[in-house]
Each structure stands twice: as structure tokens, then as C-alpha cells.
């Protein structure tokens, strides 16, 4: 059910600890939605060095650009979001120009708490009106929370103006049931800890958002029998040196990963219940095989299989 639900969301926000594969997963979700015929856009937020570049072979800019049938990408840069926002909010073109040419006012708009984020989120809202699905590669954990908290703060600080009004529209979208939130995790103890902390923090600080779905990425499926694991562990206890130790270590790493995956599934499952999706590890020990685009395709296929498996009784 859970994977299918994700596909039906209008807005999908993807966050998680750094290095967990947020960008790759966002791209895979985008690829999948587009292949199902939905008009889709994958979005980065004000990234100096857009991570999607390596995947789609072109650097996303503010204006959406087509990278595949039904699939666009963009990078919501703050300054352009501001310009667009002013153009739709301020009654006269001449006044927009006045603001954009005044350095002090620019600084003011850039740094007024909540203004910048509201304008970026406002752009996201506009995109949801133009696409069937908008997938956002959000900043890492803590920073994602501070961005997502902004609409609430803006509504309470700026109730009288269009910033506040737009922020309340963003909140409405968050609450509408058409927004989905994903935390990407890895089968590593520290990452699982941070995922659980983030899960709770998001619930407390951005109650408008639905409970997140956790995607456990790079999971190693169990392939060793108990006896095989036992033997590897016994050999590990012999204090071997040289090539024998190296050979053993490579097996131990894979065995450890299987154990870590089982532990992560147990701990995350206890915390998030049904909201857990497990995606297999691609390539060996995290190495890219055939470049990032191929990884995205494989990941999309894994998501697809997951959705099909859910539909089966």
C-alpha cells in the first residue's frame, strides 16, 4: 500500500541524513512517475552545485527543463523565486523594478526570517499546480526541518500581508493529504538513530505534515546461513594476517551488512510501523556500477517491484 500511496502524492518531500541517497531516490521516483505517464518534476532547492546534474547530464536551473518524456528538472534559486513572487504579488511592474534595484531592500528581503523560504515554498506550490507530481530533493535532516517550519512561523509573524497569506496556502497543501514526506535511511546504526530522531522531530515541529515514510536504502538481503555466518565469525577470531585476513574481511563486511540491515529493519519497523520501504543495495558495497543514471533506473525498478508486491495478496 505504502509505495502505491507515494505514487499518488502531488508533492513529495525527500529528506534524510547526508549521504543516504536522497538525490538518487528523488530522481528514481521522478523517473517512475514519468514512465507511468504523469507530468513530473524533480526539484532541488537553492543548490549552488545541483546534485541532479550527474544523473540527468544537465545542471537544473530555475526554469523547468525536460530531461525525458514527462520528466522535468529544476533548481529553485532564491533570487529568481523572489523575482517571480514579486511579479505576481506587487501590483505594478515599475514597483517590482524599484525593489529589485534597491540593494538594501534586497538584503532585507533575503534575510528577513522566513521570507526566503516562503518564496521558495511558494514556487513549489505553483509547480504543484502545473505538474501531476512534484518531487523535492530537500536539504539534510536538521535543515529540512528548519525550512519546513517556516510557513507556520510566517503565518504567525506576518498574518497581515501576502507573505503570510502564501505561507498559509503552503500549510494548507501540507495538510491536504496530497503531500508525502520521505526520510531516506541506510542500514547503519548512526543513520538509523538520526532517522528516528528526525521522524519524531518532524512530527513535533511540523505537525501539519503527514507521518513520513522511511525508505531504507542500500539494504543487504540475507544470503548467508547461520552456519556460514558462524564460520566467518570463527575465522575472524583467529587473528589472521596478510592476504588471508584481507579475504576474510571482505566476507565479514558483507556479513555485517546483512546483520545491520536486519537490525535497521527491526528498529525502524518498531518506530514507523507500516511506513517502511526497503530497497536493495545496488552494486557492491555502495559503488556505482554503470554510473548514476543506471543506479536511478535500477532503483526505479525496485520501487516498481515493491509497489507490485504490495498489490499482490
Amino acid at each position, binding site marked *: 500500500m505504502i509505495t502505491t500511496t507515494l505514487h499518488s502524492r502531488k508533492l513529495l518531500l525527500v529528506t534524510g541524513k547526508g549521504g543516504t541517497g536522497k538525490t538518487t531516490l528523488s530522481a528514481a521516483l521522478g523517473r517512475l512517475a514519468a514512465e507511468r505517464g504523469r507530468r513530473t518534476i524533480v526539484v532541488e532547492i537553492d543548490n549552488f552545485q545541483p546534485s541532479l546534474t550527474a544523473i540527468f547530464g544537465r545542471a537544473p536551473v530555475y526554469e523547468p527543463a525536460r530531461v525525458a518524456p514527462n520528466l522535468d528538472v529544476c533548481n529553485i534559486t532564491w533570487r529568481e523565486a523572489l523575482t517571480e513572487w514579486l511579479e505576481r504579488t506587487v501590483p505594478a511592474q515599475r514597483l517590482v523594478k524599484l525593489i529589485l534595484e534597491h540593494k538594501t531592500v534586497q*538584503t532585507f528581503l533575503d534575510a528577513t526570517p522566513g521570507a526566503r523560504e516562503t518564496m521558495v515554498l511558494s514556487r513549489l506550490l505553483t509547480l504543484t499546480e502545473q505538474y501531476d507530481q512534484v518531487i523535492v530533493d530537500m536539504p539534510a535532516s536538521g535543515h529540512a526541518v528548519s525550512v519546513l517550519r517556516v510557513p507556520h512561523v510566517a503565518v504567525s509573524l506576518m498574518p497581515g500581508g501576502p507573505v503570510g497569506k502564501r505561507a498559509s496556502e503552503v500549510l494548507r497543501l501540507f495538510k491536504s493529504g496530497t503531500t508525502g514526506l520521505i526520510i531516506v535511511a541506510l542500514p547503519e546504526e548512526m543513520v538509523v538513530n538520526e532517522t528516528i*530522531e528526525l521522524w519524531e522531530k518532524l512530527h513535533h515541529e511540523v505537525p501539519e505534515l503527514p507521518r513520513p515514510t522511511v525508505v531504507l536504502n542500500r539494504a543487504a538481503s540475507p544470503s548467508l546461513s547461520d552456519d556460514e555466518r558462524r564460520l566467518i565469525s570463527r575465522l575472524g577470531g583467529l587473528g589472521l594476517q596478510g592476504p588471508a585476513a584481507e579475504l576474510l574481511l571482505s566476507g565479514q563486511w558483507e556479513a555485517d551488512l546483512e546483520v545491520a540491515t536486519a537490525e535497521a529493519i527491526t528498529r525502524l519497523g518498531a518506530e514507523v510501523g507500516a511506513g517502511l520501504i526497503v530497497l536493495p543495495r545496488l552494486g557492491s*558495497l555502495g559503488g556505482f556500477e554503470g554510473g548514476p543514471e543506471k543506479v536511478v533506473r535500477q532503483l526505479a525498478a525496485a520501487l516498481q517491484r515493491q509497489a507490485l508486491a504490495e498489490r499482490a495478496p
Partner: protein
Amino acid sequence: MTLGDIIRSNRLVICVGSGGVGKTTSSAALALRAAREGRKVIVLTIDPARRLANSLGLKRFGNDEARIDLSALPDAKGELWAMMLDNRKTFDDLIARLSPDEAARDSILHNRIYRAIADNIAGSQDYMATEKLYDLVLGGRYDLVILDTPPVKNALDFLDAPGRLARFLDKGVMKWFLSTQDPGRVMGRFLMGTSAVLFKLLSYIFGEEFLGELREFFVAFRDLYDGMRERHEAVVKLFHDPRTAFLVVSAPTSPSLDVARFFLEELRSRGMRNPGVIVNQRHRVSDTPLDPAGLLGALAADQSADLGPHTAAQVLARLGAAHRRLRELSQIEAGLVAELERSLTRVQQRWEVPRLPGEVHDLASLNAVGDALFAAR
């Protein structure tokens, strides 16, 4: 130059890089090594894992400087301290320190705009990290401060620190804002005209209520500004100090190395001293295939007497396959690192740190990471 040399000769070391590359662990491990050698060190982290805190014997990191018990390492000659940045508290402390009296302090602390800022709504975290640096580095209580910065997308704000928030508090903005509220004091009709129009626009955009509150905030803040700017300028100077080094930390993966290259370029263009890149979690294996049966066949048979009939054979086959996969990965990594090297200058280095088995869960394993870092070349 080794990382040991860098840790010994600097007063401030700032670790930057993308998330999930072992930046926090490396920072703590370097700090621990420096403490063992006799320096008084503090590691300041922004968003640490609780596990790392536990490995240092702390329940969790707090905003107070906590001394780490090193008695488990009898050869430790110095002191290791650790703390985590608590944004709100650091900001409140700063306001208290700079306020001329209690009334001035409270009028800021109770302002709703201030509270939103202190809660890191406008990215004040970077500002507060620099504020804390001022305190720790220039306070003279430590020989060495190691700072673990937040992950990449925000780290640029940090290098520009105090960046966005400082621009907001900038005297020019504040002065302009307050003067538009008080047109009698503005000289010249033209300026008054433009400013009046812009101000009207801002009240339209943000609402009267917000601007009223903002005015109160600026008025209360006006007297503190010089104190803050002074501290900020001292930290910017510190970033360019010859005894400050930026270390880029990366994993041997393509996205992480892209970020590393980006940092190399940014640090270079800002004229900040960057001796090199730490490439963590590098998988090191021999170039040639290993023969599982020849190397481990007898031992495996010996150790599996009480296990299932095919266990030894299965494990040997698995080890061979795992080693082959690891070799492939290692080759991919070697290519990526070679590519990175081409973007280094002659004075920049890269240190490859092998991936160690297991996770860091106590002082001993953190110390092992420190050893690996110091041995890296």
C-alpha cells in the same frame, strides 16, 4: 605533511564536506589524537550523532564545554573537551553579554522576531557557530579548536559567516529601515520619496504588524550591533589566519568527491588555507585475486567440523566472490581519487584513510580512527 603535522601546528581546524562521510567522527578522532599528544583541545560539533557522544562517555553533547574522561588512555598528556552548538542558548548568551542593561536584554529576548531567528529560522546556526568560535578560539582557553561544520548545502553560508543573518542585522539595513519609519530625519526629498514608496511596499508585503514588531526589534538591537560586528570581523580574520586550516572531508564516491572539488574551489577563491582533502572510508585490497581454498581451506574445514556439511565450501566461495566485488569497488575508488588529485594544487594533499571494520562506539575505536588518520598519506 601528515594530518598529525596539521593538528600540531594550527590553532583552528575546520572540517567541511558533504554529509555521511565521517566528518564528525574524523573531527573527534583528530581532537582525541591531539589531546593524547598533550594539547588542550575542544571539538565543536553542530549536529552530532548520539552514538559519538556515547563513545566519548557523554550521555549526549550539550551547549556546555564538557571534559572527556581520558583515563582509559593512560598515555594521554593533554585534555579533550567537546560541545555541541545550541543555537538558541548561544544567541541568548550573546544578547545578554552585549546588552547594556536588563531592560534592553529582555526587550530583545521577548521579541517574537528575535525568537524566530534564535530558533534557526533564518539560518542563524552558521552565525552562532562563528560566535562560538570567537569565544573558543580567542578566549584563549584552548590550544586547538576543531570545528565540524554542517553538511554542504549550508556550509557556504558558513564560510560567508555570519552571512545572511548579519546582512539582516547590518547597520545599513537597520538604519535604512528605521529612517523610513521616521521620514523627518531623512535628508533629501528624492531619497525620502523612493524610501517612502519602498517602505509602503514592504508593509504591503509583510503586513503592518510584522513591520511594527521588526521596528521594535531593530530599535532594541541598534546598540548591540557594534559589539556583534566587532566579533564577526574578528572571526572572518580568524578564517584567514595562518594558524587556521580548512580540511575537506570526503568519501570515495562520485557525489561526495564532486562536493569536495566544489569546496576546494570555493576555499581557494576565498583565499582560505586548505592543506588538502581527507578521503575517508577507502576500501583497500590487493590488486590480484586471492585463492580462498589455498589461503583458508584447511582452517575453514577445521573450524566447521560441527557445522552443516557444505558450510566450509560455501563460505570459501562466498569469500572469493566478496573479495572480487571489493576489488572492483577499490578500482572504481582509485579512479575517482586519481581524478580528484588532478584538481589539487601543489601545496594541497589528499590523505586516504582505509575503511575500518565496525562502527565507532567507544574511546578505543575512536582512537583507532585517529591512528588511521594520523598514519594516512
